């Protein structure tokens, strides 16, 4: 579907440019904050970090909930970014569709794995 704005311009494409533009920035900011939350816990640990201390960071309930949210934000961020790469460089619709489906499967598979690791901790 294309919408006409004015007499000459036909707006085509994904039609959710602003939503994704904003989501890309919000998810990015969340991931930067999360990086510092994890980094702070690593740096504030005294002594060498072994298994107990490292796994301990992710084992508290609030940290699991936060990490889970970041995984979702991450997946959405990567989806927007990789989709943009395909849209810029891959012009044949069929090839683009295949690559986009591959991206979704790749992302959802990795996301499922990461969530499984997190919640069995």
């Amino acid at each position, binding site marked *: 579907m294309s919408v006409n704005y004015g007499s000459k311009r036909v707006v085509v494409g994904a039609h959710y440019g602003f939503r994704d533009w904003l989501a890309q*920035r919000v998810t990015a900011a969340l991931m930067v904050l999360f990086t510092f939350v994890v980094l702070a816990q690593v740096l504030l640990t005294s002594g060498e970090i072994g298994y107990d201390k490292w796994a301990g960071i992710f084992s508290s309930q609030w940290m699991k909930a936060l990490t889970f949210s970041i995984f979702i934000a991450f997946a959405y961020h990567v989806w927007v*970014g990789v989709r943009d790469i395909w849209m810029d460089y891959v012009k044949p619709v069929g090839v683009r569709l295949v690559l986009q489906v591959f*991206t979704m499967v790749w992302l959802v598979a990795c996301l499922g794995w*990461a969530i499984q*690791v997190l919640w069995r901790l």
Partner: protein
Amino acid sequence: MTELAKKRPEFRNINALTDLPTYRLPAAGIVSILHRISGAIMFVLLPLIVWMFDTSVSSEISFAKFKSAFTVGIGFVPGIIVKLAALALIWAYLHHMIAGLRHLYMDMCHAVSKEFGKSSAVVTLVLSLGLTAALGAKLFGLY
């Protein structure tokens, strides 16, 4: 066919093989394309990232396996390859994050002058490469 639906002319003056190697990209342009490349690297290596998360937090035994992957290797992959992949991820993450923060700053402060574009791009490159060198030296046991 309406006037609008007519095929618009396409101008493709850049040849990837003959033009790109000699194309003098400004610093902001280098940061921009590296932002995309670093993102693509992390996307491709995503299973490795989740694998590292899995083995490092799941159990004492898997943690030991995680550590030894960097020295003696894992399966048919030698340790040096694991280290190089980790180094690539370190750089990709740092560059992507710092270049992203530059974007956020520009969005929030309307910092869109030509001078700021160049200076912030240089800062991005220096910071990301410097931190990568520091963490990479640690990864390869230089200190």
